[in-house]
């Protein structure tokens, strides 16, 4: 099926956010990292494992009536670093966003090392993971210096 066909699997949205080019099978994880869950009231459509010229297969998410901001999108660096994001207003793409990573990911993920000082949930300073390399993604905790296991890290969303 064509790229356009993928988009038509679910209806076009009037207002909201479309996240395209999510690696196949990662859409649920993306929703989790964006804090979109059963308690969210906005309509969400999701297609998984559809054909993609660039990626072979991919997932797509459409979130209605909610415009995700850059900080929220940057949370996706771990699971969908190449995602394309479009903000839709009145059925038209009003803005295109890509995930931008600075030198640090702040207050998004908790260090995976069990003996890190930040594992005490009552400690108030920000959780900070330094970005050592973008491709492949390599992160280290600002405090304990431990390299982060990315598989484990996706379970540590704050």
């Amino acid at each position: 099926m064509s790229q356009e066909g993928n988009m038509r699997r679910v209806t076009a949205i009037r207002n909201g956010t479309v996240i395209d080019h999510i690696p196949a099978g990662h859409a649920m994880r993306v929703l989790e990292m964006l804090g979109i869950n059963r308690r969210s009231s906005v309509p969400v459509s999701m297609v998984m494992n559809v054909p993609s010229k660039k990626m072979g297969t991919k997932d797509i998410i459409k979130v209605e009536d909610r415009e995700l901001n850059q900080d929220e999108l940057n949370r996706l660096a771990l699971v969908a670093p190449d995602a394309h994001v479009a903000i839709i207003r009145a059925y038209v793409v009003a803005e295109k966003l890509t995930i931008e990573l600075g030198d640090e990911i702040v207050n998004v993920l908790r260090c995976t090392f069990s003996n890190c000082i930040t594992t005490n949930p009552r400690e108030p300073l920000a959780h900070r993971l330094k970005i050592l390399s973008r491709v492949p993604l390599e992160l280290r905790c600002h405090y304990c210096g431990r390299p982060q296991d990315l598989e484990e890290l996706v379970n540590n969303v704050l």
Partner: protein
Amino acid sequence: MSGLITMDDLSNEEILSILDDAQRLLPVAEGKTYLPLLQGKILGNLFFEPSTRTRMSFETAMKRLGGDVVNLGDVKTSSVVKGETLFDTIQMVDGYTDIIAMRHPRQGAAQYAQDAARVPILNGGDGAGHHPTQTMLDLFTIQQAHGRLDGLKVILAGDLRYGRTVHSLSHALTRFGCELILASPSLLKMPAEIVADLNAHGANITETEDLLGSIETADVVYMTRIQKERFADEDEYAKVAGAYKLHASNLDGAKENMIIMHPLPRVDEIHPSVDQTRHARYFEQAFNGVVARMALLCRLLDVEVPADIGGGA
């Protein structure tokens, strides 16, 4: 500089300059002359974990320089046991003192404290993380013996996995171009991320399980204690620990000026017969904790150590 959390906080030039200060402060550390450079300053000793040498040597260093010390005391009776966060403890002590020396069981605690404090933090050990003030006294001891730090062949032996002293020391020695032999049982090997860091800095490293194989060409043998609790059963511990013991008879072919160091406390890894050899330096090393920490306290408090102190330096 703000505090000293890892050896990355010091350039090689700063390390050498602090060691110079330490050398000049020796007569003060030995009590031969009194030099109240830190009069009116207060050190906060925050030891959340047991410590003998580090805590006492910080206290001695401060007092030899005319400063004063306040102690957290026993963690069991302090507000920590009531559930106070490290952040809150630091806010309080930050207001009471001019500088804080800290040891904490959690890794990253020293950096966390530095981010929470206005006064400098001296990391006296954070979990299995770093122990840079120990590294400074180790470097001072090596420089005393060999007159230099660069280009030496150093064996780091024993528990390289959990031993934070060897983590900080290996970084510093690599920066000075030393060749490192990492001798440990496979269970207690140097963590892969540290070896990767050292390699990224151009380290010349050999990992081995054989302690004695390179003893004849070494300039420094740095022993550490293998802890029984790291092993699942006692037989395995006994087997492994037995292979990392030094006896005077192992040192026959060693270089004349080779030195044996140990952060102490030792258990069985250095036999008392070694104490009487010219190679033993661990007790001098423990004393050097005072002078190295004196130099660090002065540097972090922006107090210049005079060029001429007198007293037989």
